């Protein structure tokens, strides 16, 4: 089995898990769900780290691309998780009961 096919298996199965999990999230939490999921998509930072940290085989261009990728992905990750936390902190149950 080629790497591509193997990766495709993982992708399709993860999609199913995603649909199952997310269909159960109540509409009340759809905005934090979106911003939280958004932060998770910043996982691409892992790829950016490898590109930026790779030994410079004479390619400064690669490192610059990697640097910009890290900046973008970190904005996504840090901003996404923090703003989601800020929102979820506001969701409170009725206190006087």
């Amino acid at each position, binding site marked *: 089995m080629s790497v*591509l096919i193997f*990766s495709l298996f*993982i*992708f399709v199965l*993860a999609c199913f*898990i*995603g*649909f199952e*999990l*997310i269909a159960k999230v*109540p509409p*009340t*939490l*759809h*905005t*934090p*769900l*979106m*911003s939280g*999921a*958004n*932060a*998770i*998509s*910043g*996982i*691409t*930072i892992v*790829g*950016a*780290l490898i*590109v*930026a*940290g*790779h*030994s410079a085989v004479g*390619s400064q*261009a*690669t490192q610059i691309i*990697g640097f910009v*990728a*890290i900046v*973008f*992905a970190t*904005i*996504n*990750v*840090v*901003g*996404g*998780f*923090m*703003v989601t*936390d800020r929102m*979820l902190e*506001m*969701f*409170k*149950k009725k*206190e006087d009961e």
Partner: protein
Amino acid sequence: MLPTISNFLPSLPIDAIQIIYLVAAFFFIRGIKLLNSPATARKGNQLAALGMLIGIVVTLFDQQIVDLEWIIAGVLVGGLVGLILAKKVAMTAMPELVAVFNGFGGGASALVAWGEFSRYADPTLMTTDSLITTGLSVFIGSLTFTGSFVAFGKLKGFISGNAITFPGLNVINIGSMIGVFVLVGFFTVDPTNQTIFWIILGLSLLIGITSVIPIGGADMPVVISLLNSYSGIAAAMAGFVLGNSLLIISGALVGAAGLILTNVMCKAMNRSLFNVIFGTFGGDSSQSTGGDSGDKTVRETSAEDLAIQVGYASKVIIVPGYGLAVAQAQHVLKEVASKLESRGVQVKYGIHPVAGRMPGHMNVLLAEADVPYDQLLDMDQINPEFKTTDVVLIIGANDVVNPVAKTEPGSPIYGMPVLNVEEAKRTIVLKRSLSPGYAGIDNPLFYAENNQMFFGDAKKSLSALNEALNDI
């Protein structure tokens, strides 16, 4: 030139890194699972963030990483920008922020694929599989990047919220997409030809702009949800390029989340996804159809009268629309609700999925005003309750309570799920005027016998009601 900061961390074997990636993936899945309830959601988000931290830290032990200077600089810059954005944003501006984050995420994924490609001094050494996924990753990532910033511009008002289009634009968009796929094919045959790569990149960036620009402002919730899905798929694609399972799994989860939300929004707006993308309905300014409202009468009420009606009711449901948020009236609404509750009135909120400007937006705005989440009921939960309700207060909402959606098959909103407010004993609409909503159609609810209108700005009207409640 800065002195090179070499990676002082020992390298871990690749299998060890993969196992730890699996742990990170588990944290993401567990985190999303905890988002199933408002009581555990915050913990879920923190768990996902922890998973991310684990993923990032373990990657630094990868033997491929030898230089840290660019990494440290990038994380500092990005972290600072992300921190400021997250702390400063107003809750009303959440759709804009999510659009921006989508854009950065998509852009990062495209850059990762590009960077991976540029690492090869001789690209013919790359396998056909990686070349295909590189091309597709650049495509989806770039279109998410520009598309998100156009969506941001539309939400912010930099770009007209109206549908900007011209005949043939759809044909051009579809043609460009087919063009990109054909070029990705050429790219895999001859990866040394840099020009092909640049055209794929340029065309993809352009498609992002031209495919979002014709979509009207009212449809932006659908667009943001869809771009959210794309940003996930872009991350998964980058995972295909790198052969990294963590990226693939996380990207797939996000892709699924975005698609579900897109579907929820489309259903709530009575639109098909095809219609949103290729139609042009849903501009900012829709003209009134006029209708035959001339011979109908509306019953107006006053703050004092309203205070008596809600103050002596046993059950009140509040239906907020975006007009409430525009007027920044959430806080005074909460004060009114608290006063009613202290008088023994049962208060609930009925929230239509499109009440805000993105899925779940209104819930966040009300949570910010300290409304407890157990009082926020979604459409399916609240609809059976109207029959037993004395007064429904409709504040800054219109189309989502229009009974025409159920009764007139010819109406543009026919079939759209709406709140059955007319089943309550009395409805009171707080609104600036009788003007129609986004859909541009008249609302017979306003002229119904058991309905009263309280004209004015939502904040002023609610403040007056709040005052009047003190005197009864």
